[in-house]
């Protein structure tokens, strides 16, 4: 191949990459993400309302928060944590209980504001920061749902807010500074989900228990996920291998079938149904909700028709 040919190919690749990463689209996906994450933050806060201070306090709680923060400091000194807020509050004489309660109220408030789309950017940053502080300071009691909430809130706060269904847009008449990046942030979320499901599916495929269904059985009888009576589960035993293989294929096939217009709907419904099943059958409601929110925002906004949806906020910049 000549040098000119290589340059042409490189130029073509660059154009295709830019076209792929910066598609023209509406902000309906951002509306779904904002609304969904707002609800998620509200449910997260409410689900921990009675245990928040107990789980996250220093001395006098379930696990001393300082231990998790000390371990976090070894790894990363700059990751936000509740200890920072407490150190600040100490200067003005506020005690731990008040600061933790205030953090909980602010998180709940940020969730409510996100649902309505009031002060979107500020509330997205506040929700991300406070949730991250709680997740990191309570490192020993964090699990998958915290990771996915951080991912979602991280992308939300970087996305070009506000969207057109928010209070900010409608009443305060605020407009996003970089609307041409709407498609980019959606792509980032879409590709991240593809990576998540591919590796999740791949790791499951490596375990024999997902092929013969025994892992489905174990998942459903493992405390505290054993909310269905095992005697009832035994009656469904022939479904376990099918469900195990179905989950493996659904997850590992996600990055291949979610992009195609013909298979997207089937895959999205399948994935959402799987998460709803996990939520109802294992009691992992928050985990199910965050996964459904991320999926619907990333790939469902074309399927969910918004009233009076117009094609784009602003035309794409012309690539010379």
């Amino acid at each position, binding site marked *: 191949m000549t040098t000119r040919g290589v340059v042409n190919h490189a130029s073509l690749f660059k154009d295709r990459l830019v076209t792929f990463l910066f598609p023209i689209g509406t902000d309906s996906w951002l509306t779904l993400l904002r609304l969904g994450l707002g609800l998620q933050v509200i449910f997260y806060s409410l*689900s921990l309302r009675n245990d928040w201070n107990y789980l996250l306090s220093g001395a006098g709680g379930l696990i001393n928060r300082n231990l998790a923060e000390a371990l976090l400091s070894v790894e990363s000194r700059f990751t936000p944590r509740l200890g920072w807020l407490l150190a600040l509050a100490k200067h003005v004489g506020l005690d731990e209980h008040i600061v933790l309660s205030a953090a909980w109220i602010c998180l709940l408030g940020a969730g409510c504001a996100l649902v309505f789309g009031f002060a979107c950017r500020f509330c997205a940053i506040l929700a991300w920061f406070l949730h991250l502080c709680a997740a990191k300071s309570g490192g020993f*009691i*964090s699990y998958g749902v915290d990771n996915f909430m951080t991912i979602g809130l991280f992308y939300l706060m970087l996305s070009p807010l506000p969207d057109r269904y928010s209070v900010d847009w409608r009443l305060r008449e605020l407009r996003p500074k970089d609307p041409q990046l709407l498609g980019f942030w959606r792509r980032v979320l879409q590709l991240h989900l593809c990576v998540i499901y591919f590796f999740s599916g791949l790791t499951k495929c490596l375990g024999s*228990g997902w092929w013969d269904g*025994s892992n489905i059985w*174990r998942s459903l*009888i493992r*405390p*505290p996920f054993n909310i269905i009576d095992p005697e009832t589960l035994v009656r469904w035993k022939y479904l376990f291998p099918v469900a195990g293989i179905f989950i493996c294929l659904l997850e590992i096939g996600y990055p291949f079938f979610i992009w195609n217009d013909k298979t997207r709907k089937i895959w999205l419904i399948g994935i959402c149904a799987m998460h709803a099943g996990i939520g109802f059958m294992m*009691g992992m409601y928050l985990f199910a909700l965050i996964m459904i929110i991320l999926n619907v925002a990333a790939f469902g906004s074309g399927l969910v028709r918004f009233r009076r949806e117009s094609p784009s906020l602003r035309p794409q910049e012309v690539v010379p």
Partner: protein
Amino acid sequence: MRTKYFCVAWFVLHFLVIMSVSCRDTLRSVAEGPTILPRWSKDFSQKAEAIASVALGQDLVVSNPVRQVLATYLHVAGIESGYGYFAPNVPGTYKLTFELHYPDGRIEYARPQVSSTAAALRLTGLLDQIGRTKYDALKEILVKMLAQSVWREHRDVKTIRAEFGSISLPSLTEFQQGKRESYQTLYTYDFSLTQGP
């Protein structure tokens, strides 16, 4: 146009990191096994995992600024761990029981308590972490903290014996034959409460 180039550069770095973390954790799962892969894949996975860890700066000293910045980015973006939930296989679970000894010879049993179902899920995750941690000292500190939380509810207790064990789940066939989950004690800790545990 400059914004777009900046975004593309960030995108490439962001996904390189995500891929590295995901590959590292998947390889770790293979190395720790058991999986359906042949035995030789374990050695390969261990070596490959080490390479992925190097890419994430984990061979650098902890205080190295590059490692610190990278670790911070992983945490703030929520991408510090892979996505192998309940994979390759669903592990068993753990149980922590406290035996409370009162000065009058009375013995009561207690377990760490939280109010809500959401917090109970997190408590189970904590017990799983205690069970999986390789560091005995950390294990003991965490159990001691949980013992303290129980002691605060039972102030007149003299000593606490903490029994940490694993729960083995029966297979479907075993369950049909009448076998139920079995408990095996892994560690026992005694805490004296003369001045608090």
